[in-house]
């Protein structure tokens, strides 16, 4: 993901609006929630890490499987 804050914010608020719309189907909900969560993570991490660090920081968040 390489978005400006503005792009991320626009996307996120659009997703939340869609999710709040009662007509949304349950099977598309999961996908939209996932996308929204990714955008939230992206913004919150980007505020605390500079540019290139963001991708690294985001991937570190998911625990990696240890190879024995």
């Amino acid at each position, binding site marked *: 993901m390489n978005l400006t804050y503005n792009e991320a914010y626009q996307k996120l608020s659009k997703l939340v609006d869609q999710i709040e719309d009662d007509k949304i189907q349950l099977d598309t909900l999961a996908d939209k*929630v996932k996308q929204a969560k990714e955008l*939230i993570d992206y*913004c919150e991490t980007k505020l605390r890490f500079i540019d290139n660090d963001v991708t690294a920081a985001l991937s570190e968040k998911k625990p990696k499987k240890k190879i024995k």
Partner: protein
Amino acid sequence: MPKPIKLSELINEIDDVIQDRFAGETFWITAEVTDVKKQPDKRWCFLKFIEKEGNLITAEIKGVFWSNAYDSVVRFEKLSGQLFASGLEITCQVRVRFHKRFGIDLEVLEIDHSYALGKLETERQQTLDRLVNENPAFIRLVDGYYFTSNKSLELPIVLQRIAIVTAPDSDGQRDFKQEIANNPYGYTFSVSEFLTQIQGDNSSTLIIQKLKQIEVEKEKFDVVAIVRGGGSQTDFKPFDDYDLSKYVASFPLPIVTGIGHDRNTSIVDLMARQYKTPTKVASTIVEHNFNFETEITELKDRLLETTERMLDKAKDNLLQLKRTVKAYSPSTILNKGYAIITSNNQIIIDPKDIKLKSEIKTILKNEVIHSTVTKKSKHELDL
């Protein structure tokens, strides 16, 4: 030729004449000062008084502040927010002195501060008027407020890449960086420093040069901060400079100022976003980002609330369906004492389909009763 006299004899005579005419007398004069040399440690200040016609100097004399009058210089700088420096026009009280070796000069006893400040204010107002009159494309004055194209630039939603223009090893630089680094939210910033002298002669040109460097790589920055801290020597004159003010007003990146002067607002402050002190500039930037994060958090809350509500609703619907299905299921009905009648393995809904003497099955809770129809009649049950 008369017999020559010694130099000292002539000088003594000059001294006598001057003493006769000027001893014990003081004068108020208005003049421009130049060649100002301050020696703060000794509390002396040497200068020249001049008067000009156009660019031509038509009168000139040395002047001096001794330590008893040096406070007047310090006070001028405090009141005006400017260095006591060449180019100022002042009104002051002087005494004429003659020294047998160093010649004639004027000893300054006190400065008329109201005159000096008034003069500076007039100059400042002239600069402001000129900015408005000569740059209608990007500076407008409406109801006492200066609208500039720089001030109307929208601030990016997050300010993270900051270019600061400040003096090296200055309080302003330190205060700003400290406040940014110690922000309570753990935000990261990239601060690029453009260091230059920011007070004294020529500073406004040096600041313009730094801004030009920033403009060249303007995509790399969200905001420009011009900061300077307090300090014993304060000189805000560079920030009242016409060229610098004009450049700031039309600069393509948002500029925030923390030039730090309680009493006075510089012209550069009026052309950009003014946050007074370096610390305030930094904390405002941090809060700006916090506001963004708050909006994100609100969206996050809305998201969680909505998904929870939707899943609850779906669960409720499912439960309702389950109940309905159960209520209508044959086993529920049979348990209540109702029966199902079939004939030729067809469920009978209409009794007309049952012929006399035909075989029917009556399905009850656990058993099936086989019977032959012997009689049919209307019932009088109130169902």
